[in-house]
C-alpha cells in the first residue's frame, strides 16, 4: 500500500474516531436544532402559563392566526395580566400572612423575573413610569429558526385546524421552550403528503408538495 493511500486512510480513520466520540454526545446534522433549549432573558414558564393556567396559545402568539409569524408577544401583552399579578401566588399569600401577623398593610411583592419586565418598560415597584428612564428592549433567544430560504406560514396551518403541539410538542409541560421537532424538510414534506386538504367545491387533495409552497 502506498504511503499516499495510507495517509488518506489515516485521515478517514481520524474522522471516524471523531464521529464515534460525537455519537456519545448531542449530535445533529447541520441545521438540525432539535432539542435546542436556550436560556431566555426572562425565565418565562410555558408550563405555568400554557399548562397550569391553560392560557390559550393564541392569546400571546396572536400573529399565528393572521400572519406568517406567530411572533413573540410584545411586553404590553404581558402587562394585560402582570399589571395586577406581580408575583407568584405563594409569595403573595406569604406576604399576606406576614402582614396579618405583624399587623401592617400588605406590601406589593414583585418577583425577580417580573422585575425584569418592569425594568424593560421603565416602571417602578408601583408600576409607574420612572422619570428619565428609557424603556429597554427584551432580546428573546430565537428557538425555532428556519433557514432564510424557507417561508413557513403559521396562519394557513392554524386555519386548517392543525394543533400547535403537532409541531411544537408538549409546550404546556416545558418550563423552558425546547425545539421539539427537527423542522427538517423531510419532516415537513411527510406531513404534507399525509394531510388532505378540503376546499369547498373541489375534490380533496394533499397539502402542496410544490417547491414553491415554501421556497421562493
Amino acid at each position, binding site marked *: *500500500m502506498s504511503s499516499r*493511500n*495510507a*495517509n*488518506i*486512510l*489515516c*485521515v*478517514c*480513520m*481520524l*474522522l*471516524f*474516531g*471523531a*464521529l464515534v*466520540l*460525537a455519537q456519545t454526545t448531542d*449530535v445533529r*446534522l*447541520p441545521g438540525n436544532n432539535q432539542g*435546542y433549549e*436556550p436560556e431566555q432573558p426572562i425565565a418565562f414558564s410555558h408550563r405555568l402559563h400554557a399548562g397550569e393556567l391553560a392560557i390559550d396559545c393564541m392569546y400571546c402568539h396572536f*400573529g399565528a*392566526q*393572521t*400572519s406568517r*409569524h406567530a*411572533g*413573540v*408577544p*410584545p*411586553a*404590553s401583552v404581558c402587562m394585560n395580566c402582570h399589571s395586577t399579578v406581580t408575583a407568584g401566588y405563594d409569595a403573595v399569600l406569604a406576604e399576606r400572612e406576614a402582614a396579618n401577623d405583624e399587623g401592617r398593610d400588605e406590601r406589593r411583592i414583585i418577583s425577580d423575573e417580573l422585575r425584569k419586565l418592569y425594568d*424593560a418598560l421603565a416602571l417602578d415597584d408601583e408600576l409607574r413610569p420612572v422619570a428619565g428612564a428609557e*424603556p429597554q*428592549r427584551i432580546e*428573546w*433567544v*430565537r428557538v425555532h*429558526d428556519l433557514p*432564510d*430560504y424557507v*417561508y413557513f*406560514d403559521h*396562519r*394557513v396551518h392554524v*386555519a*386548517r385546524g392543525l394543533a400547535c403541539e403537532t409541531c411544537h410538542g408538549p409546550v404546556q409541560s416545558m418550563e423552558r421552550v425546547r425545539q421539539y421537532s427537527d423542522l427538517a424538510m423531510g419532516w415537513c414534506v411527510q406531513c404534507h403528503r399525509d394531510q388532505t386538504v378540503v*376546499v*369547498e*367545491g*373541489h375534490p380533496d*387533495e394533499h397539502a402542496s408538495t*410544490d*417547491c*414553491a*409552497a415554501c*421556497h*421562493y
Partner: protein
Amino acid sequence: MKKHPRKTVLPPFEGTVLLPFEGTESSRRGFLQLVGFGIAGAAISGCSRGPTRHVVPALVPAEGVVPGRPYWIATTCGGCEAGCGVLAKCRDGRPIKLEGNPQHPVSSGGLCPAGQASVLTLYDSRRFEKPLRAGAAVEWEELDPALSAALGALRSGTGRVRLLTGTTNGPSTRTAIGHFLSSFGDARHVTYDGLSCAALLDAHEAAFGRRALPRMRFELARTIVSFDADFLSTWISPVEFTRGYSRGRMLEGDTPRMSMHYQLEGRMSLTGSCADERVRVAPHEEASLLAGLCDLLEVRAGATRRLAGAIESCPRRDVVERIAESLSDSGADSLVVAGSNDVEVQLYACYANHLLGAYGRTLDLDEPSQQRLGDDRALAALRDELAAGAVDVLIVAGANPAYDLPDLDLAAAGQLIVCAEAPDETTAIADWVAPLPHALESWGDAEPRAGVLSLTQPTVPPLRAGRTLRASLARWSEDGRSERELLREHWREAVWPSAQDPGTDFDAFFDAALERGFAQTRVQSGQAWTLSADAVRPTQPSAPAADALTVVLYPKAGVLDGRHAHNPWLQELPDPVTKITWDNYACISPVTAERLDLSEGDIARLEVEGDLAPLELPVHVQRGQDDRVVAVALGYGRLGTDRFADVGPDWIGARPTVAAGGVVGVNAATLVATTAAGLRGFQARSARLTGTGRSSELASTQEHHSLEVPAHLAPPGHEVRDKDIAPRATFEQWQADPATALHGRHHVSGEDLWKEDHAGRVRWGMTIDLARCTGCSACVVGCQAENNVAVVGKDEVRRHREMSWLRIDRYFQGEGDAVSTVHQPMMCQQCDHAPCEAVCPVLATVHSSEGLNQQVYNRCVGTRYCANTCPYKVRRFNWFDYEPIDPLQAAAFNPDVTVRSRGVMEKCSFCVQRIQEAKAEAKRDGRAVRDGEIQPACQQSCPADAITFGDLNDPESRVAVRATDARGYGVLEELNVRPSVRYLSRVDHGQEEDSHDH
C-alpha cells in the same frame, strides 16, 4: 429581512491519531467513498448550531401592526408633481413597495418608473441627518432661533424675501407660504419647474385670460396630435395620460375603438414610438406646421381667417392636410398637444383645439391641472433681482436651482436658506440647510387637479431629521404647531367646508380622507371660457444654418430632470427607446451619423452657439430621429453621483461605473436657452457635433438576450423572424379578421413529449396586450422593487449581466418617418414543456402542480444549462453577490423574497410570493382565491392595463377570456414549449409592412 444564508462556523477539529490499516485495496471509487465519508463525519461531529439569533418584539406595538403581515397606507407619490395616488405596502413598520391606488381620481392605479423607485430614496443614507449652517451640522434648536431672528429683523424693515420652489400644489403648504410671505413688506413666491411647461400656461393666459393648465382627457380623444410632447413617459402626468390613452385604444367589448395618434417630433420619444403615424420635424418647424394646421382648421370650422395662407409656407403640407382632415372628422373629440416651451407654438395648439371645439370636451379648464405651475417669466425677474443684489433672503425649497438654472446667481442673495432632502448643487452653496422629509415619512397634501385633494401621510417614523416647508415656515413665524396639526387645521378651515361629501363631523371626514388617500371638493364649473383670438398671429418662419444641428434637451424616463439621479434602480433602468443604462448621450439619426462620420459610442464634442463650454458625450445612433436634431438627456452629471463608482462587484476585471473623479453622465442643463419671450427653451440652440477620435462603450441592453437565431444556424424553414415574435396588424385589417397578424406563422406542433402530468386544479397564466403596452417600463422597476432584483452597475450591464427578471424587448420596423415600434415585455414564460427543467442536473428548476416553473435557489448549483437552453433568454445568473450600494437600502428589500447569492440562477416567478399570500388569506377565510385577487407586481404597476394574470383553468377568469382572444399567440410557440404567457398582437393605425429589424 432575509439575508444571505449564514455561514456555519466550524470549530477546529480535535481528535486522536490512529495507525493506518495495512494491505487495503485502494481505487478511485474507494477513495471517493472514503473522502465522502470523512467529510460527512467532519460535518456531523464538527458542526454546531449557528450563531444565536434573537427575537425582539416591540414593547408596545403600533396599532394594527402584526409582525410579518403586510398592510397598506394610502398616500401620494412624491416622485414628481403629478400627484398620483399610491398605496404604500408596509411590513413591520416600514414601506417596502409602492402600488398605484386604483381609486385615485388622477392616476386610477398604476405608477410610473420614478414613482415605483421612490421608495428606495427613502432609504438613501445620503439624506441629511441634521440641519447645516455653512456646511457644518447644527441642531434645529440652533437653526430656528437664528432664522426667526434674521427674518424678524426683515419683517420690521424693508427686507426683500424671495421663496423659490418647484411646483407646490398642496393647499396647506400654499396657505402656509401665503401666510409667511404676507408678514414681510416685500416678499414673493417664485415657482419654476425643472421641466418647464411655462409656455403652455402662458399661452392659456394670453388666450383665455387665466394662467391655467387644462386637464387633458386622452380617453375621450379620437384623434391625438402631439408636437414633441412625450405624454406617455415624462410629460406632466404620464400615468394619468397613459391610462386615458389606453382607454381610447380598446379592442375589447362591443364597441372597439382605436384613437388615431399623430406624433410630430425631432427626437425619437417613447410616445412617438407608440404613434400610429410619426413624422420627423425639426423644432423650428413646429410653429409653421401648427400655423398651417390652424389655417386649414379655420377653413373647415368656417372661422375668421387669421392665419390665411399659413399653409403655403408649411414644410410638410401633405402631412398637415391629412392631420387636419382626421382632426376635423373627430371634431371635439380631438386633442392637439405640444411639448415645446415656446408660447407661439402653444398658442397655435390652443387655437387649434379651440377651432375643433375641444375645450370643454378633451380639454377641461373648469377643473384645471395644477401639476405644473412654474412661471419662467417670474424666474427671469428673480434672476434680474439677484443680479442687482436686491434679494436679502432667498429661501429655496424642494428644488435644485444651482443645477437646473446655471445662470441664476444664487450666491448674490444676502442669505441663502435651502430646504432639501439630500445634498445637492444648491445645498453646497447654502448658508443654511433645513432638511426636508421624504414624502413617505411626512404629512402633506397635494391638489394635482382642481377639486382633487390628495393626502400624504407618514408610512414610517422619520428616518432622518426632515421637516416640511409648511412646518418650517410656521416655526420661523413663531408658530409651534406640529405638521399634522397644521395640515388638519387647514383642512378643517379650507377643505372641509367645500368638500363633496363633508358629513357632519370633521374628524370622521378627515379620517375617511386619510383612509382613501384623497378627498374631492366642489369646483365651480360652467364658467364661460372665451378665447381672445387676437393673441393668435401669423408666424415668421425661421431656419437655422443649413449644416447646424438643433439641440433638443429631453428628460429620460425615471431620472427626469435629475431629481432621481441618485436612485440606482432608475440609473440602471434601460431607457425605453434607446435601451441604454447609466449614461446620457447625444442621439443622432443614422444619416447624420454617416454625414459626420460618427458611430455608436464615439465620443463627440458638442459645440453650442453662445458663449458656452462644449460638452463631450458619447454618440448614440437613433433610428427615427430627425436628421437635423441632436438630442441630449437632462438630469445627468449630478453632484454626488460619483458614489456609483463602486456599484457592482469588486473583481479583477471590473471597470468602474463612473470614471475616477467623475459623475454619472454629463450635465446638459447648461444648454437650456432663454427664448425671446423670456422662457427657458429646451430646443433652442443650434450646435455642431464633431468626433474626438475617442470612444466609449455604452451600456445598452438592446442586443442582449436576443431571441433571434442567426440565419446560417437556423434549420431551413425554421428561421426565427421578429415578425413572428411581435406580429402587428392595422386596425382595418383587425376589423376584417382579428387574427390577421398571426397568418403565416410557423406551424405549432401539438405533440406531447410528456404525459399531461401537470394537469393541476389551477394553472397560472398571463396575457400581455401589445396593443395597450406603451413600453413605459413601470413594470420593470415594479418587478425590481418586488423581487429584490439586484443593481449590477454599468460594467456588468455591458457584459450582459443585468439581473432584471422582466425586460421590454423593442422591435423597430422601417426607417426615417416610417419607423414603427412594438414594445414587448418579456419574462419567464412558465412553459408547460419547459426546456430548462429537462436540462437541470440537480432538479433546481421543476414544474409545480399549478403550472409554475419553479426556481429553487437552495438546490441550484449554477451550471447555467437552463439559461443556455431557455429560448426566451429570461434566466439571470448571479455571477457575484450583488449587494446594495447603500447598506440602508437593504431595508427596502421585500422580506417575502429570498435575496439570491452568488452562483445561483434566478428568474421571474410570476410573483409566487403574492400567489402564496393570496392563497393563505383565502384559506384563512375558508374560501377559494378570487379572480383578480392576485396581481403580480408588473400588472399592478401597469398604467395601461396591458397585463392580466389569473387562473387559465377557470374559463370565467379575465385572463382566460383574454387568452382566447383571436389576437392571442405564444412567442416561439412553434418550439412546442407551451408558454403560459399569451401575447395579444399589436394593432394600430400604422402602415402595413412585412419585416421587422432591430
